[in-house]
């Protein structure tokens, strides 16, 4: 195929070829008969200026944080929500964006499930929570909670671009982006769209099992390949302390040393270890925060450690 990234002239092009990324691509007289003409004239190879548009639009957003995993169900959305709330409690202005278009959990966890967005001349307005956190998710755009989002990669990418370019985020200290598991179209879209505006850093979430760590190693590999700064690792669902007899149980045994071993071997900060607390599941389902429901609990202490770590990392 044509390597159009640098506007190189294809081998099979006529001598008068203006280059596939030119505004005249496929349109000059000399282009007639060239096998690439149809694609060139459709603008297929024209440089995509989305990163510049994103940079322009998010100029008021100081820090952009990704919450990643690789593994599903380890608590990315939960951690995203609590980081956002923790930051808001420190009087920062915060927005959260859910780019998991297939499984948009964030709006329920943030307590704004079923809300609607409005469109104005400055774009879509995000939904604001009671503690003034701006939230955007595809959830607000679907007419029914039963609708499946059966989109191929390109359409998902288009949606993510809309979220970044057409939402009126305003001035934010932090924009935290919840992602789906894996390393695929959505992740590539985010990195590509942020090419000029730069991701401040990524928080990686895992559970203690090797099955999870294995996926997180891949995610770390992805971050390194695409030069995303790593803020650190959060181990979630670490230990359960029985409410009756206080016996500690490892629900997801750390057969290979858990998050701590992974962080050490990969030379990244081990930020905190969040215990498995039934309050989390209940709170998440009801759109409440453990930081509010149980501010003195062990898990809230760990979340505050996480938030402080993020703030410190982001300080210029």
């Amino acid at each position, binding site marked *: 195929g044509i390597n159009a990234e640098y506007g190189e002239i294809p081998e099979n092009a006529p001598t008068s070829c203006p280059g596939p990324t030119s505004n005249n691509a496929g349109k000059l007289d000399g282009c007639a008969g060239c096998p690439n003409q149809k694609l060139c004239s459709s603008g297929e190879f024209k440089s995509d200026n989305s990163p510049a548009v994103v940079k322009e639009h998010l100029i008021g957003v100081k820090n952009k944080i990704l919450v990643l995993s690789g593994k599903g169900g380890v608590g990315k959305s939960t951690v995203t929500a609590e980081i956002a709330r923790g930051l808001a409690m420190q009087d920062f202005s915060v927005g959260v964006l859910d780019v998991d278009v297939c499984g948009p959990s964030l709006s329920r966890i943030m307590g704004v499930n079923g809300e609607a967005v409005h469109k104005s001349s400055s774009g879509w307005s995000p939904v604001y929570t009671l503690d003034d956190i701006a939230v955007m998710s595809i959830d607000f755009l679907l007419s029914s909670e039963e609708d499946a989002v059966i989109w191929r990669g390109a359409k998902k990418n288009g949606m993510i671009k809309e979220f970044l370019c057409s939402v009126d985020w305003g001035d934010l200290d932090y924009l935290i982006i919840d992602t789906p598991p894996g390393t695929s179209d959505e992740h590539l879209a985010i990195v590509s769209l942020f090419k000029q505006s730069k991701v401040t850093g990524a928080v990686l979430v895992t559970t203690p099992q090797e099955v999870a760590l294995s996926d997180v*190693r891949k995610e770390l590999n992805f971050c390194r390949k695409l030069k995303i700064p790593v803020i650190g690792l959060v181990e979630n669902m670490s230990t359960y302390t029985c409410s009756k007899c206080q016996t500690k149980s490892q*629900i997801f045994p750390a057969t*290979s040393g858990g998050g701590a071993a992974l962080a050490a071997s990969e030379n990244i900060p081990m930020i905190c270890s969040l215990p498995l607390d039934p309050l989390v599941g209940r709170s998440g389902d009801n759109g409440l925060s453990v930081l509010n429901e149980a501010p003195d609990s062990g898990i809230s202490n760990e979340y505050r450690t996480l938030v402080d770590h993020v703030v410190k990392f982001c300080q210029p």
Partner: protein
Amino acid sequence: TTEVFAGIASVKQILGVLSGKGGVGKSTTVAVIAFNLASRGFSVGVLDADLCGPSLSKMIGLKGNIHSCDQGWVPLSQPVGAGIISAVSLSYLVENQDQAVIWRGPKKTAMIKQFLQDVCWGELDFLLIDTPPGTTDEHMAVMECIPNCSVILTTSPQAVAAADVLRQVSFCKTTGANIVGIVETLSGFVCPNCSDCSLLFNQGGGKRLADHCKLEFLGSVPIDPNLAKHLDSGTLLENKDTCVSYLSYCEIVTKVLDILGVNCEPMQAEDGG
């Protein structure tokens, strides 16, 4: 009419395990059901269609590289009880297991189709397909290749999980998949010391979802650290009887076989098996 993919032409029953939600036991369910079916004497294939996070190969304890012969790729296989398990996963095709698979949709779609077309699955009683979370190109590829695929959906008891699975039900209905029923995993934890049962991931989501969608509720599986440990190390085969959740899965398999109209004992069962 849809062409029947060569690789799966002699497979009697294909069963996909889907969810929509991540981390609610799809791979676990495929692995344990595969072991259970094989123990009953069935020949079982497992295909890991989760290309980014192929957990299944680790769980069933089969390691190695896949080779091709004249007819196509040969799955890794291992006798299990009176039956046999054969497996295909992207992890059997890559050298570096820590390498991220950063593929866009079309490449993933092509890989899934190859897994169904170019693998010599041979004569199997069952082919179980593990899927990634979401409704992705991988799911669409499976549904395109296997119209009217039978499907089990897994969820945890939380509303947050059930909400994603509700969307997956719509996806299945749109693609014509035959939903066998819903399995609720992570269904409570019994403290090994005082036997107090704690609802670590809330409760009720699976049954509510089944009722709402008028689907069969196949059963619930408790949280079982022992199972998690053996799946991590690939040692489930030798230790399945020590796992409290294995019994729950046995009951679920019996129910599934009943619904699918499959004889609980395979035709090729060995004598005295």
